[in-house]
Each structure stands twice: as structure tokens, then as C-alpha cells.
């Protein structure tokens, strides 16, 4: 019986330790961010390209289809109440406040987070990070901070692109295919949406960008330097990011309401 309690105690202690180390790691990244952003801007640009520009295709395709589904579902369900004209409102609310930031963050974890974690993990496994330290280059500044910043910058932009293509998809399905009046579609959306709703989505995407990049960089940096360890770090990145994003989404939504 005491064995179980001891197990729980040590697991909890382990969790606290990891959590605290993650906070300290985050603070170190933040402390180094401004100087890297100013002095090694080119490195950051390169990472924005890797995480952002290369994720554009998947983001836009997914956005288009998520928006299309919202158009179909919204139309078929709202027409029971004779409120097909509110499809625009329905799609815009869902996309801007929830689906845009959340689905983008999940896709970001799958597309960019895994790439970051495995890249950094492999650098560690092949002793590139140790080699940098030998040459008196701080790998945190040279490798981790630019990747973190790249993700933080790319994520809100990706979420905005996702919401925009989503609205386009909803518009195509609802207006062009199902015959909702385009004026009603946009006008109803504009009367019921507020700048506050848009800013909720933007704040969410900024938070998710920070969390997603932080976890990816952290998992890669702490990967066990073997082939298996890198693989496990990649998996953990997706799992932990997905869980944290969904929990944080709930908390931010609760704050805003």
C-alpha cells in the first residue's frame, strides 16, 4: 500500500520537476529572444519560412474544407429554423473564435512542431549541439531561440490565413452551391461580429504559437540522443501540444466570456 503512495509521490515530484524546468527553459528563451531578433534577424526569417511559409499549403487546404463543412452543416441545420441567412455568422464565429486558432495549432504541431523537435533531436543525437558548445557557440541562442521565434511569429499569421480561407470555403458552399444570399451572408456576419471576437481569436493564436513552439523546441532539446529517443520526442511533441492547446483553449474561452 505504501508502495503505491510512494509511486504517486515520486511521479508527482517528477512532474513538478519537469514543469519547473520547462518554465525556466521558457524564461531563458524569452531572455535571449530580443537580442537574437535584432542581431540575427536572418536566422529568424529562415525559421519563419520553415514553420510558416512551408505550412501554408496544408493550412489553406484544411481551412477551405473546414469552412466548406461549416457551410454545409450550418445551412442544413439552420434551415430547420428558416435561418439559412445566418450561415455567415455561424461560420465566422466558429472559425474566428475556435476552429481557426485550435485547428491551426493542431496542424502546426503536426507539420512544424514535429519538424522542429526531430531536427533539434537529431542535432543532439549527432552531437552537433555539443560541437557548437565546443566552439563557444551557445546552441540555445544559435539553434533554439530562432526556431522558437519563428514559430511564435508564424502561428498567428497561419491562424488568420486559416480563418480567411475557411470563410472563403463557407462562402463558396453556402452562396455558390446552396444559394444563400451573399448580401445576407456578409451583412449578418458583420452586424453580429465584434472586434472583440476577432481579438479573442488572435490572442488565442498568439498563446498557442508560444506554447506550440516552446513544447516542440523543449522536446527536441531534451530528446534522448538515440534514434528511438528522437522518434519518441516527435510523438510527445504532438501529443503534449494537442493536450495543452485544448486545455488552454478552454481556459481562454472561459476568461473571455
Amino acid at each position, binding site marked *: 500500500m505504501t508502495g503505491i503512495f510512494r509511486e504517486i509521490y515520486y511521479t508527482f515530484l517528477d512532474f513538478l520537476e519537469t514543469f519547473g524546468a520547462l518554465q525556466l527553459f521558457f524564461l531563458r528563451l524569452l531572455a535571449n529572444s530580443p537580442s537574437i531578433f535584432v542581431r540575427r534577424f536572418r536566422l529568424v526569417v529562415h525559421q519563419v519560412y520553415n514553420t510558416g511559409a512551408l505550412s501554408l499549403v496544408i493550412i489553406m487546404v484544411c481551412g477551405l474544407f473546414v469552412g466548406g463543412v461549416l457551410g454545409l452543416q450550418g445551412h442544413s441545420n439552420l434551415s430547420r429554423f428558416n435561418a439559412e441567412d445566418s450561415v455567415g455568422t455561424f461560420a465566422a464565429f466558429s472559425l474566428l473564435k475556435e476552429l481557426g486558432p485550435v485547428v491551426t495549432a493542431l496542424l502546426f504541431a503536426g507539420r512544424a512542431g514535429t519538424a522542429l523537435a526531430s531536427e533539434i533531436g537529431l542535432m543532439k543525437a549527432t552531437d552537433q549541439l555539443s560541437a557548437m558548445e565546443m566552439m563557444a557557440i551557445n546552441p540555445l541562442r544559435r539553434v533554439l531561440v530562432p526556431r522558437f521565434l519563428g514559430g511564435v511569429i508564424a502561428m498567428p*499569421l497561419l491562424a488568420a490565413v486559416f*480563418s480567411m480561407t475557411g470563410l472563403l470555403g463557407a462562402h463558396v458552399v453556402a452562396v455558390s452551391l446552396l444559394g444563400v444570399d451573399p448580401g445576407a451572408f456578409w451583412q449578418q456576419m458583420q452586424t453580429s461580429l465584434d472586434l472583440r*471576437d*476577432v481579438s479573442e481569436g488572435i490572442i488565442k493564436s498568439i498563446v498557442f504559437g508560444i506554447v506550440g513552439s516552446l513544447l516542440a523546441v523543449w522536446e527536441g532539446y531534451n530528446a534522448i540522443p538515440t534514434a528511438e529517443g528522437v522518434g519518441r520526442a516527435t510523438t510527445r511533441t504532438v501529443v503534449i501540444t494537442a493536450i495543452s492547446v485544448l486545455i488552454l483553449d478552454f481556459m481562454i474561452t472561459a476568461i473571455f466570456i
Partner: protein
Amino acid sequence: MQQTRSVEAGTGLFVLLGMAALFFLTTQTTGSDTFSGSDTYQVTARFQNVGSLKPRAPVAMSGVTIGRVTTVEFDPESLEAIVAFEIDSKYDKIPEDSDASILTAGLLGSQYIGLQAGGSEFYLEQGSEVQFTQSAIVLENLISKYLFSSSSGNATNSEN
């Protein structure tokens, strides 16, 4: 070198697209408050019942939005609701004896304040109060009135 340049161009394109998307979301999907940046003047009105009137509800004259409700408060002394709203200062020739009523857009739509022009030669200005007001029509009251009258009618019928 060639590759770095294309990476930078790609990044630039991506950031521009993202910014354009953000701009689109903030300007095109939200209601365009045409007078939110321009000058306004504050006017108040007292109502017996404001229904479900909320701050930011439109103030319309002849169906055109000319202002927005800023606050809806209850006055504990007169036991009335005090609604403050702002009107775009380019509409500064609204007669002082105009009549404000709380209307509903459509059967189940949101409520707004409709101003009906009066005939006075004096105009509403900062801080003035609209004298003539008409309360919101509460659907439940109408329904209960109708039900009550029809059921009492039945009662008299059955007595006969």
C-alpha cells in the same frame, strides 16, 4: 545565395499574406462602425421599459444608423431606465422634440432605438434629453394579454 534569397522572398510573401488575412478579418467580418472614429455627442432618454436593449445597439432615424447606445442604467429614484446614446455629430440638426422608441428588428431580431423627427426649431445637442419616449414592446406581455382576453372570452361564452 540564390537559395537564401528565395527563402527570404517566400517568407516575405507569407508574412504579407498573413497580414492581409489579419486585415481582412478585422475589417471585413466585423461591423463597420462608420462613426466610431468620428466625433459624437451624447444624448439621454428615459424609458419605462427597455426590453432587452443592450449597449452598442444601433440608434436609427428613418432606418439609417446614426448612432449607438453607450449605456443602459436603472435610475433608483425615478424607477426608470436611463439610456445614454451617442449620435454622430454630422447629424446635428435633429429636432429637440423628436420621439425615441425601442423597436425590434424583425420578429425575433435585436432591439434598437428608433428616432422619429419632431417639428421643433431647436436641435438635440451634447447632454440633452429626449422628452418623448416609448417603451419596448415585450412579447410576453402581448401574448399574456392575448391569452388572458381570449380565455376570459371563453369563460363568458361558457357561462352563457
